[in-house]
């Protein structure tokens, strides 16, 4: 079972990111579970959501304490204690940050992959919503399911112009991170 924890701030589409990732897995015939751990919901407050992907029914409903992957929607969250806690050995951290992966890793003394998600979202969607860009990059890194699965999940949730822009974003930004970099981790977690 692959366990993922997504950290973000209220208003960044954190829960939607979790639901989309789980739905993308479902589109490929996998079992999935996604749920938020809300604080009192308000814009800007740190929020957490969890995703599990497996080949059989998922029955545990506890929070994900030892994820294989972390997706961080706002680099300022890296200063909050506990955000990186519990990451499995060799696990991957994907961060929405304008720096290069090398600089970010140096700054936090931990290997991370950076993606300028807010910038890309502004460019493609006209809105600073980094969630879909991060998911597209996450799928490139892990190859858990193909990008087409994410596109299908988006099609169920959005329509019209918003959908078209998001689909274009998914199609075009995959190459910005190394393909399959975390495939080994994902495959090991799956087994």
């Amino acid at each position: 079972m692959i366990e993922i924890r997504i950290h973000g701030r209220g208003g960044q589409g954190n829960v939607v990111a979790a639901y989309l990732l789980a739905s993308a897995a479902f589109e490929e015939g996998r079992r999935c579970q996604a749920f938020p751990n809300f604080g009192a919901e308000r814009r800007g407050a740190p929020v957490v959501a969890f995703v599990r992907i497996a080949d059989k029914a998922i029955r545990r409903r506890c929070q994900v304490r030892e994820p294989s992957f972390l997706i961080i929607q706002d680099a300022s969250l890296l200063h909050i204690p506990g955000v990186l806690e519990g990451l499995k050995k060799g696990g991957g951290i994907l961060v929405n940050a304008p720096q290069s992966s090398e600089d970010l890793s140096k700054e936090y003394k931990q290997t991370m992959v950076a993606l300028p998600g807010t910038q890309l979202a502004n460019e493609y969607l006209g809105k600073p919503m980094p969630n879909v860009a991060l998911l597209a990059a996450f799928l490139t890194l892990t190859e858990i399911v193909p990008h087409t699965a994410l596109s299908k999940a988006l099609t169920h949730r959005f329509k019209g112009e918003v959908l078209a822009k998001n689909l274009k974003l998914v199609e075009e930004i995959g190459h910005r991170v190394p393909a399959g970099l975390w495939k080994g981790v994902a495959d090991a977690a799956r087994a």
Partner: protein
Amino acid sequence: MLHALEGSQAIAQAVALCRPGVVAAYPITPQTHIVENISKLVADGKLKCEFVSVESEFSAASVALGAAATGSRAYTASSSQGILLMAEVLFNIAGLRLPMVLTCANRAIGAPINIWNDHQDSMTVRDSGWIQLFCADNQEAVDTTIQAFRIAERLELPVMVCMDGFVLTHTLEVVDLPSAEQVDSYLPPFTFANKLDPRRPLSLGTLVGPEYYSESRHSLHRALQKSIPEIVAADKDWKKLTGRSAGGLLTVEGPKDAKTAILAMGSVVSTLCEANEVLAPKRKTKLIKLRAFRPFPVEALVQVCEGLTELIVVDRAFSPGQGGILGTEVRSALAGMKKKPTIKNFAIGLGGRDIPLETITHLLDAAKEQEEGDFAILDVELNKLPPEDR
């Protein structure tokens, strides 16, 4: 057909499949998404039903009461303080023998104010005369919602479907939604013999004096007791139709020869079942998932407790100054057994505290230490309290 759906959305779809005549609702976390999704279905023309946005939960229950009394299939949903504000009306609905369905998205009750999950809300109205069924996952919640309308209408009793707030309502997972044809074949249109009808005048809710009050309460008690076979039949027929059971009165899982069992209600059972497989505790342990809390299925419970030496009852709410509510009821239900297991009782996961897999080990260890008849909150952290409160 399989869908990846948020729990609330799945329930909204299930309610829509039941073709309600009136839905009345007032928003409260974590229930809001359910009625929000129903109102969308109505606004989009996908569900023909009178959706009444009211100004309080008291009114939501009152509108549903009125609708049911006129023979309309009625539905509402609420949580926590919302359920408490409905309390007076809930007792009336049951006392008047009006069939309807309510989803309780289980949430703690203040003070201190807390929006997260436990069972204190539905436990507080356990004596209202409603049937209460608890769900372990979103599939069970969907299936139970549909069964609930049939049970309610056949028995002229209201049914409360209890599903854990956030843990189920806000979890997206794979759910098999039945087809409209399947639900139509299972749930015929609602016809209510005692409905208010100007062509056939009758009085409803009149004052009843001491000479008939006891009889009226007796008949409500009897109706709840006699609902047991109907709950079983509703689930059996559902299984025939869809291949799925929603858990009947109760179900047992785990090694057949286990002498220890853990009994619980709601989504915690789902976590404990996986924990039992993954962590495989040395003390072989069964899990008893209680689905029907009202009526309380004494006979079925006694049957599955035969041969057990130890029963650990997990509560998600308690009665301050007394102890676990479910624990107390299980002790009372098993009191007549010749060889009854020792019964231990813990509350866990109050106000949304996470229930990790290791809970199963903690429960088994703590049960060894607990005196028979005692009660404790398993995951309380006493070091957070001043010494005089520990």
